[in-house]
Structures are given as C-alpha cells and as structure tokens.
C-alpha cells in the first residue's frame, strides 16, 4: 500500500503529462473496441452458422434457379436429415437503400431447420393461417418501427405478379428473436405457397437448398454425394458447409480481417512508442529522486516495481476508459446504418482488451524500470 502512495504522487507530479498519456492510451483502446465490433459484424454469420448445415446452390451461378423437385432427391442421399428450399425475392421496400433479405420459404421447414430462430407458438399459428403473412426478425422490426399487423408493400424487381402488378403486399403476423447475440434477425420470410401461386413466371423453381446432415463430421462427404447426384444434369449443384458459404461472401467484401488487424497493429505500435517514451523520460527526469529512495532503503526490486506500477496504473486507467467508451459507442448502433446484420462488442474481445492493457503496461514500462533498477546511488545523486 505504501507503494500505491508513491505511485500516485509520482503520477501527479506532472498532471498534464499523465493526463495526456492516459488519453492517448484511451484512444488506442476505443479504436480497438470499435474495430473489434466491426470485425465481429463481418464474422458473425460464419460463427453462428449451423455446423450440421449445408447450402446447395446452382453450380454455374448463384443467380440461377434449381428445380423444386430436387428436394426429395436430396433427402434420399445418405446422411441427409432434412432439406428445405429458399429463394431470393430481391424486392425493394420504399427505396433501394432500405435493403434487407426477403426469402420465400415453407414455414414448417423453417421451424425445423433453424432452431436458433425463436418464435412463439401463437405467432407460428398466425403465420400458418395467413397466406400473405410474413415472419420478420426483431432487428428488422426495430429498424423500420413496424408493428404486428402492419401491411408491408414490397416492390418486386425480379418477380412480377400474375395479375401484371409489381407491388406485393404482406401482413406482418409473426416475429422471431435470435437465440444468440450473433443470430441474424434482419430477415423477412414469405410463405412459399403464396409466392409460388402469385408469381408470373419461374413456377416450380427455387433459389437454393439448405440441408441438415445427421453427422456433422461427415458433412464434406454428404456434400460431395449431393453434387454427384446431380452431376451432368441440366442443373448441376455445388454443396458446401453453411459457414464456408458465408465466409465466401465475407471474403468477397475484402480481406477485412487483414485490413483491420493492420490498422490495429499500426495504432498500438504508435501509442506504445509514445507511452514508452513518456515513461522513459519520466525516469530520466527523476533519477535524483529515485536515487534518494534507494539511499533511504528501497531495494532495487522495489524501484523496479515502482516504475512498472506507474506504467500499469496509467495503462489500466486509460485502457478501461477506452474499452468503456468503445462499448458505449458500439451500443449507439451500426455506423453503416443497416449494412451490418449485427453489431456488438463480444465479451471475449473485452477480455482480450484487458489482457492487452497489462501487456502494454509491461512493454512500455520495462526498459525504464530496468534502468531505474540499475541506478547506482552515488552516481545518480550527483546528477
């Protein structure tokens, strides 16, 4: 405890310098927290992807459709538990920048395939009763302030209606929540039967299949078996694990991970340099005082501990302030207003941040601390 008094008075010696160093460290950690949240937004889809799920799409191109009768054929493949189809509706709600995924799907199949979508029994029944009903995620509801019972008009750019119109109207009768923080709750599910009977063309064709395998370890084999089933047919397929499929999209957006890690490293290195320099300067300035402390009986180890302790206090204050502010900033919402399906700071990364704080304290303070430890009293007193 006596050390604490010495540390705090050492820091209070040059208040402005201490304050500024804490502020620089704080900024480094705000950036750390925010960038981690951004990286998580890109990775989230991959993390929550079902390990026992495959995506089967048209081999030539994602935009090509597959026949609906493939479903029973896929289910007959060894190792397949259940297969369901989904299609891309691709409509516009009011204006193009209000982009969100609209997907025609068979309700009972959705309930079976995606246990991470939590829906109340009441809502399930409501959706099964209303042909034009839609199941909407909580995130999407909040984004547009929709209420249960709203009529949502969507302008279909791809699918014209049999009566010639392009505006489809849906009734919001069911809501789903995500089981985990990373679950995507920004989707809009339409009933497939309503979609199929109303669309002017493309009858009997669907976008892709989601398949659940009974043994996740055999996923790759089952995927190969599915592709073999349709090889050389009019519509060849490509089956892959759901996580890999989503990762493929993330990879297209760019090697975000690499860019973010580079920025973080650059920032940390710079801040470390500044903090370390400040610490070193402080020790040089106080050579005399440290020598006096040694003269009155503080051990070499004690002085080492003193300098490291100052470094630690500085970085802890700055780091925790930074992480706290980052948490606050992240909770203010997605900076891109809707491009990210989820946006939050994972607790795991907060712990990594805390670890980094300690590491930074050590790296910045170790050299000055060792210098202080080695001070020869007589020499130092003369300076």
């Amino acid at each position: 405890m006596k050390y604490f008094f010495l540390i705090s008075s050492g820091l209070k010696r040059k208040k402005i310098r201490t304050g500024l160093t804490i502020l620089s460290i704080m900024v480094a950690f705000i950036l750390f927290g925010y960038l981690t949240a951004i990286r998580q937004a890109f990775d989230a889809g991959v993390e929550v992807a079902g390990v026992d799920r495959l995506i089967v799409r048209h081999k030539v191109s994602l935009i090509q459709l597959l026949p609906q009768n493939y479903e029973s054929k896929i289910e007959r493949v060894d190792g397949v538990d259940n297969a369901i189809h989904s299609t891309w509706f691709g409509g516009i709600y009011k204006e193009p920048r209000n982009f969100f995924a609209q997907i025609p799907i068979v309700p009972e199949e959705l309930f079976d395939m995606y246990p991470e979508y939590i829906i109340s029994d009441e809502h399930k029944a409501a959706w099964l009763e209303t042909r034009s009903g839609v199941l909407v995620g909580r995130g999407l509801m909040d984004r547009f302030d929709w209420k249960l019972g709203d009529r949502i008009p969507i302008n279909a750019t791809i699918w014209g209606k049999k009566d010639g119109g392009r505006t489809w109207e849906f009734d919001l009768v069911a809501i789903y929540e995500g089981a985990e923080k990373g679950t995507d709750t920004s989707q809009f599910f339409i009933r497939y039967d309503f979609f199929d009977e109303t669309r002017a063309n493309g009858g009997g064709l669907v976008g892709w299949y989601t398949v659940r395998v009974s043994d996740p370890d055999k996923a790759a084999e089952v995927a190969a078996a599915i592709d073999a089933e349709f090889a050389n047919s009019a519509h060849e397929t490509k089956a892959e694990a759901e996580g890999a499929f989503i990762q493929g999209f993330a990879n297209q957006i760019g090697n975000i991970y690499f860019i973010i890690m580079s920025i973080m490293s650059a920032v940390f290195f710079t801040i470390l340099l500044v903090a370390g320099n400040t610490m070193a300067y402080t020790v040089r300035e106080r050579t005399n005082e440290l020598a006096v402390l040694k003269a009155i009986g503080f051990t070499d180890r004690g002085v080492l501990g003193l300098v490291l302790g100052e470094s630690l206090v500085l970085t802890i204050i700055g780091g925790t302030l930074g992480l706290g502010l980052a948490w606050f900033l992240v909770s203010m919402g997605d900076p891109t207003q809707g491009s990210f399906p989820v946006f939050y700071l994972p607790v795991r990364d907060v712990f990594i941040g805390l670890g980094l704080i300690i590491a930074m304290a050590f790296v910045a303070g170790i050299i000055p601390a060792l210098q202080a430890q080695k001070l020869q009293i007589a020499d130092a007193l003369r300076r």
Partner: protein
Amino acid sequence: MFNWFSQIVAVTHFSMRSLPQRAGSSVTAMLGITGVVAVMVGVLSIAQGVLRTMESSVGDNNAIVLRSGSDTEMMSGLAGEDTRIIAEAPGIARDETGVLASPELFVIINLPMLTTGTDANVPLRGVQTQAMSVRSSFRLVEGRMFEWGLNEVIVGTGAQGQFAGLGLGASIEVGQEKWLVVGVFEAGGGLAESEIWVDAAVLQPAFRRGNSYQAVYVKLESSDAFDEFKEALTSDPRLNVKPMREAEYYASQSTVVYNMITGLGTLIAVIMGMGAVFGALNTMYTAVSSRNREIATLRALGFRAGPIVISVVSESLLLAFAGGLIGAGLAWLAFDGFLTSTLNWASFSAITFAFDVNAKLLAQGIMFAMLIGLVGGLFPAIRAARQPVAQALREL
C-alpha cells in the same frame, strides 16, 4: 517591428539547431504522426479507388436504358423486341457500323478468388457487336476478340488479376460447356474491367434467357441529345423503360459501398487523429519542459513571449510536416495501385479496383498532420511562454 521579427528568426533558428539534442522525443512525435497519416491515407484510398472505378471514363453522352422500376442491370429485363425499338429512338449517334446502341445481358458466374480460393460472384456480360463502339475506352490488350457464335470469351484486366482460371488460353466451365479465354481487355479503369464478356447469343441459351436482355447502352450524338432521347422512350406506349445518363447510373450504384467505406474510414481517421493529437501534445509538453531553463534564460535575456511561442509551434509544425510527408509517402508506396476486389451490393457481383492514393488524398493527409502539429505545439508553447522566469530558472 523589425526587432520582433528578428527575435523570431533568432529563437527559431536556435531551437532548430538544438533539435538534435531532443532527437529521441522528436522522432517519436514524428513517427506517431507518420503512423496516423499512413493509415488514414491508406483507408481513404480504398474509397477513392472504388469511386474511380465506378466513375471513370464515362463520357457525358453515354446513356443506359433499363426496365422501368429497376435500379440495376441485374434486376432489369428487356425483351429482344424492346431493344430494337429503343435502338430506333432519336438522338443516338451513328458510325460506319450502324446505330451505337448495344443490348446487353448481365449475369454472374462463380469463380474462385486468387487470394482466398473461395468463390466470388464474377460479372458475365453478353454483348453484341456494338458494345465495343459504345464504350470509347475499350481496348484489347492481349489476345484477340472472340468469334461471334463460338464458346469464346474475353476478360477484363481486373477480373484476370483477381479470379482464378482466367489466363489466356484457359477455359471456364459453364454447366456442361467449356468457354475459352481468347483475349484480355481494358476499359479505362472502369467497372467493365471486372467483367468477362461473351457473345449474347451464346449466353442466352446457356442461362436459358430466350431472346431477352437486361439493358441497352447507347452513345448519344451529344450530351444535350439525352432529353430528346429520354422523352421519346418514356412516351412510347410500347415500352416501359427508364433511360438514365450512365454517369448517374454508376453514381447510384456506388453509393452504398462508397458511403460504407468513407464512413468507416473517416470515423477511424478521426479517432486516430485524436490519439495523434494527444500523443503530439504529450511529446511537445515533454520537449518544452526539458527546455524550460533554456527558454527562461532566453526570456531573462529579453526575448519576448511571442517569438518563443512561434519557435515552439514552428518546431512542432516542422516535425508534423516531416512526419506527414513520410506517412503519405509510405502510404503511396505501399498502397497505390494495390489491386483488390470487393462486393458491389447493388449488382451482387464483384468489382475489382485498385487503391488510389491520389494527389488530393496526399494533400489531405499532410494538412491533417499539420493540424495535429499546430494543436500539439500551441498549448505547450503558450505555457512555456507564460511561466514566471525566476521559477523556471530554478527548475531541474
């Protein structure tokens, strides 16, 4: 007045010459600014690169016609008959080959990326003979043009650089068929360089599109001819189309990606900038406090406060400028021209682009650095000039 001025020169000269004594902290401050500027320029060059690709080489007299209600080629659909009607509209330029109107089909095909090996959505465009003439910056750089009616394609330089299997002589698998890559083209750095082109008549049956297209690209007689052209098409009862200037079309396509990158980039730059200001302030305060006695001596000798403030600020500005220059230079060396690709949300396909570190960005980076230097030097300078002389002289 002259006295004041010569004081400034003297003190500044003096402090510059004593700079080597403070080499350690000066270099640190400089490096801090270098880091910030390099990262800021790097991140913003991504947005510049995307912008450049999307807007480049689109002349004022180029227009595109989509189906009414569509915002992108991908979502649009035009019957073959409609494209013939559109080609008869007034205002379209002609040359010896005929009317410069090009009906085109736009689909995506999956090919692995060279960097990660995972699949990307690569744009595949079905064209007719006019496509090359409508785009004035089109140039074949390797190989030859494909033969009409055959399973041959040409690829853009950007596409070739990002996706696997597009070398000259390679074949891409499309369903049961193999399409041969016979040529490589450039298009003035524009979006077309991320695409693969093939004869529309070959693409339509491969993707089961019948006789339909998605867009008609036209080259107008002049920029003013657009209004007449648009009027004729929108008032034609046989058609239900949306003519746009090509530049406008690209602007609307790029908005999402550009806004996202610029928004994120600016946010990161601002936060880093704040960090840099604190770091610079810290270093300058430390630098000044190490010279306290020196400064106090100067003041005791009779130098006024003003020149001292100016000398400290100019030292800070010099360091910031040097740091900014190095940072901008590093960013330019490391990032300019770096080829990569991202996802164009509007068309759901990949666009290849190069990081673009242009003069405007470099200037912005250095300005930013100077701003940091100014703020970082001002407060310590004022503080140094205000301290009571006797007290400062006594300080260690």
